[in-house]
């Protein structure tokens, strides 16, 4: 029950984040949203994900956005679209939402232990990870041992992103212009 209330609150914060005219407010709402998402992860027993979300999602990404905002106008100043352009995005969203709602009919019920996702490799990890890797935390053993190459890929993505940001934001020489 607490889960459902948290989730509904998430929807409210998300709407507030995209409706606020002051972008600083908007970023604050996004950080609060991430923090509540971390609570949801804890409630869903995904403790490692909750740590990461609270540190990286609520902390670092908010800091990045505020740092960018210090260089530019804090208030959103776009004009409202008129005519067809105003309702077209809403129509696209409504159609997509209808298709996604229709797709949930075929999904297994929430918390169903017989769902297909729990039948493939996950039982192997749960059964053997302590014996094979010596770690009681199954998430850690899968992350660092069974799927170590995923983590290597993640690291290379972070490295590439860091290089991209450095290249995009470096100060160019004056004679280069």
């Amino acid at each position: 029950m607490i889960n459902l209330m948290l989730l509904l609150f998430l929807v409210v914060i998300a709407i507030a984040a995209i409706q606020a005219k002051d972008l600083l407010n908007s970023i604050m709402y996004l950080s609060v949203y991430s923090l509540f998402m971390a609570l949801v992860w804890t409630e869903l027993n995904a403790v490692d994900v909750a740590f990461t979300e609270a540190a990286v999602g609520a902390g670092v990404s908010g800091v990045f956005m505020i740092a960018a905002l210090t260089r530019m106008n804090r208030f959103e100043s776009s004009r409202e679209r008129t005519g067809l352009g105003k309702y077209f995005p809403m129509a696209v969203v409504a159609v997509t939402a209808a298709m996604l709602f229709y797709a949930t009919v075929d999904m297994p019920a929430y918390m169903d232990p017989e769902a297909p996702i729990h039948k493939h490799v996950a039982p192997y990890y749960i059964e053997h990870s302590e014996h094979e890797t010596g770690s009681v935390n199954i998430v850690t053993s899968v992350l660092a041992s069974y799927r170590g190459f995923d983590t290597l890929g993640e690291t290379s993505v972070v490295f590439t992103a860091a290089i991209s940001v450095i290249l995009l934001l470096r100060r160019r020489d004056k004679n280069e212009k």
Partner: protein
Amino acid sequence: MIDFIAAKYNYLICVCLMMIGFYAVIAKQNLMKKIIGLSIFQTSVFLFYISMAKVTDGTAPIVWEGAVRYDNPLPHVLILTAIVVSVSTTAVAIALMINIYKAYGTIEDSKIREIEAGESGGSVSR
């Protein structure tokens, strides 16, 4: 209908969050708002994965004596990776936005279009 909502409310909330993010990306003119919408969109996908991992009577996937059964650890691992990747992509998007602001002096999509139209209309050859 009530049974359907009670059994699958996690997916319905995911769809709601995803559509809020999607609307921000396609309808909002401000680039910062678009990035915020993209973050909400990404988080809804994470919620979709993690809520699939939950099982009845499941405890956190850490081995202990009295466990009835464990939640599926695999989605947790995938999303742990995805959160870090999503922040990296957000950082690159913000860097691009800062460069757009340096070039045009605004981050409003409509004003950027006006400036572009003015530039190409004013010059004789492109």
